[in-house]
């Protein structure tokens, strides 16, 4: 197990390095330079001032030197400072991480609340009209652009229901306020995940229900609901949990447009603005953290999987 873990962690290193290199290169390939963007179209600067600005932005050296420089600092845990706001990148990320995490958790909770009961019902009534209907409704959630769903929710809630859309407050200050500001965006995100979860719940349960031991349990004279609760459901949930984990990884980086619409100060908005402003250190830092979280979540899910289901052994 330990050897397995060590090798998995080791394998992450080239991936993370690759991500760093790709993002470093990609953001610099985008036409438009950080200094000019900072100045916009209204500001006049003398050539001497421009030289000073380029040095200050750290774009006066060759790109290769810049990369090695950056790599060296990252390894020492120094993510640099934002070119635009002069705030330390790591501090900005740490400030936004809780929101992204809470939004993702809430979206998953909502998705589970919708998907698991519907998935079970749909599996039990397989191929009935109810099943077909439920699946179509479920897939509808996956078929809408989440930003569109978000905009529609804002329209309905604020215009017709006159419900206040709270500004985000940290959970440590006011958990109710946090919930108030997050439930709509979480619903918009959760709708799509619910569809995926439902699909897995349904197919996983169908598979389990078709297996020997479930049939045996029925044969022993156990009631249908008891078989479902004691035997079928727990086993069927295992792959569903795996999917949940992967969705968590996806959600941490996939909420960009939703954050924009709901005015949530999360990592998605931070990185989107940074891309458009060519704020190189911020883009690099955020993408690295998101990717790291993504691969670590996936690793955690794998380990969890083995822990829940003793039949699986790694190593």
């Amino acid at each position: 197990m330990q050897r397995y873990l060590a090798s998995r962690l080791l394998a992450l290193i080239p991936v993370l390095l690759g991500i760093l290199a790709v993002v470093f290169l990609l953001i610099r390939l985008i036409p438009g330079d950080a200094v000019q963007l900072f100045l916009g179209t209204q500001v006049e600067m003398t050539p001497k001032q421009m030289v000073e600005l380029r040095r200050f932005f750290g774009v006066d050296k060759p790109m290769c030197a810049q990369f090695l420089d950056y790599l060296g600092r990252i390894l020492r845990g120094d993510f640099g400072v934002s070119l635009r706001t002069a705030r330390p990148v790591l501090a900005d990320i740490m400030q936004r991480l809780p929101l992204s995490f809470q939004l993702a958790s809430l979206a998953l909770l909502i998705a589970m609340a919708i998907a698991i009961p519907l998935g079970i019902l749909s599996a039990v009534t397989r191929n009935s009209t109810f099943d077909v209907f439920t699946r179509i409704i479920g897939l509808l959630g996956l078929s809408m652009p989440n930003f569109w769903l978000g905009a529609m929710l804002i329209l309905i809630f604020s215009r017709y229901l006159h419900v206040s859309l709270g500004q985000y407050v940290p959970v440590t200050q006011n958990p109710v306020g946090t919930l108030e500001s997050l439930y709509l965006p979480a619903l918009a995100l959760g709708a799509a995940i619910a569809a995926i979860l439902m699909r897995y719940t349904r197919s996983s349960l169908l598979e389990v229900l078709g297996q020997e031991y479930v049939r045996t349990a029925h044969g022993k004279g156990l009631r249908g609901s008891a078989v479902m609760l004691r035997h079928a459901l727990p086993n069927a949930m295992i792959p569903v949990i795996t999917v949940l984990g992967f969705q968590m990884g996806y959600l941490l980086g996939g909420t960009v447009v939703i954050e924009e619409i709901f005015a949530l100060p999360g990592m998605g908005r931070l990185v989107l603005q940074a891309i458009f402003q060519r704020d190189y250190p911020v883009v690099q830092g955020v993408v690295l953290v998101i990717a790291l979280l993504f691969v670590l979540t996936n690793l955690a899910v794998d380990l969890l999987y083995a822990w829940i289901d003793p039949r699986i052994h790694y190593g």
Partner: protein
Amino acid sequence: MPGSTPASTTAEARDRAPKVEQPRLRTGVRWWARRFLRNRVAPIGLAIILGSMVIAMLAPAIVPYDVRKMAPQDALHPPGGGYLFGTDEFGRDVFSRVLMGSRVSLVVAFLSVLTALALGTTLGLIAGFYGGWWDSVSMRAMDIIFAFPAILLAIAIMAVLGTSLFNLVIAIGIVYTPQFARVARAAALTVRGLEFVDAARALGLGNTRIIWRHLIPNVLAPVTVQVSLNLSLAILSESALSFLGLGTQPPTPSWGNMLSEGRQFLELAPWNAVFPGLAIMVVVLGFNLLGDGLRDLLDPRLR
């Protein structure tokens, strides 16, 4: 559940969730057609897709108004009175624009998935079938792309390449390449371990023959499902990129830029954003239903 090789990262981990397994390909079109129709979900999806493709093809002939024609006196006209879906701030007919917009959305979706399919399947098949260093390198590259948040990667690529229809196809294509590479690789790995391949080798068949005769047919089923599901993702990606102003150029209507332009009229003229959104929903639902149905059909454990 298949065990995991120690060196695997996210790539195989993701594939471990129950997905499409190798179906035993049975011949007989009628046998498949019967099963397809009995599935109930997939035929609905197929009908929606075919319907929207027909509309997209006929759109220039059937739209009631020129999509560029501005009628300032009729700006923001609510649905009805000659304008089925109302008009936008320029007085252009939303219904005509939704119909014409289907062309951009569908073309981008099909071409980008085709790009991802060609790139990904080739990479995956070679990696899975030959293994070795190429396998490690290409799959690690796929991991890198995969670990990027998809939308951010697409945004960055669009920003590098600049906005055009062609670049939209490239950006979305690259983002979805790893998924095809993985599906194809997994299938290739399975086939490589099967007895009949050894038998074929023993009979002196070359790799090329084996790939064409045995590998491709076996990869076909899982890839088909992937194509259908990715088409839905591609349409959503196009709309998100256009929404952020990185997609198709106005005045060419696409559903994404209609949403983008319609967003500020959400209060005043909701039809501007509601109808293109509904159009996306219906078409994407079609691809999802088809993909979901096919997944069931091709999954041997659910027979």
